């Protein structure tokens, strides 16, 4: 399990934009760098991030080797209904991690 940090408001007013900040620890090996033995290290990156909230994928990002190690993504989505927000990272070598935050909409 990679360490993931999610910063999201616990409560929000309906209709208001909520800023979600995410950071996950991952090497994001580009597949272009030589290792200690001079051979190119195989690619190992996170390829996709998705945020599912209130029955819909509201934000999705396709990542490439040009994304920094420990990918950081901050975005804003409208508060609609109380419920869980599911954040999923998927990547090479079967990498998959999901974090859930509960959001209360007043």
């Amino acid at each position, binding site marked *: 399990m990679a360490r993931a940090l999610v910063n999201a408001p616990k409560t929000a007013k309906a209709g208001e934009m909520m800023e979600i900040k995410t950071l996950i620890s991952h090497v994001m090996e580009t597949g272009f760098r030589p290792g200690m033995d001079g051979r190119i290290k195989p690619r190992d990156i996170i390829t996709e991030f998705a945020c599912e909230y209130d029955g819909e994928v509201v*934000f999705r990002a396709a990542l490439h080797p040009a994304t920094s190690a420990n990918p950081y993504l*901050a975005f804003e989505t409208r508060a609609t209904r109380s419920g869980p927000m599911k954040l999923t990272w998927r990547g090479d070598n079967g990498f998959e991690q999901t974090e859930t935050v509960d959001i209360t909409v007043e």
Partner: protein
Amino acid sequence: MTAVSRRSALGIGAGALALVTVKPAAAQFVRKDGAATLEAIRAFTGGKEAAPGKIVMDIPPLVENGNSAPLKLDVPGLGDGVFVRRIGVFNEKNPLPETVTLHLGPRTAPRVQTRIRLADSQTITAIAELSDGTFHSATADVIVTLAACVEG
């Protein structure tokens, strides 16, 4: 004291010069021209023309560490009912032209922040696709002091 002859001194100088000019083998991945970038942009827009403006890209003009350059994207002043469908960020000289592709929607604000890698000083292009089917672009020139991606 052993005197260094003029001949050997020149030889040392030439050797040092050769060391400086030999680049690491990995530098072969850095692209020389932006042909692949134009191709990637064409694939993203489906051949449509992207008009400059509307999208604002915020990236420092001088990046000290190419391993992590903060990138901020914003599409301000959208009309009612118009939203941003996708934003594609393309680079000119990294091994691959695609940098990051963001899929937004009517429930998401067109403001995103992330961090990217830059293998060389280059021009970054961001293209936004709006829900009305139009494309808008922004470019930024970035000078990179420490390159990323290709060196060990």
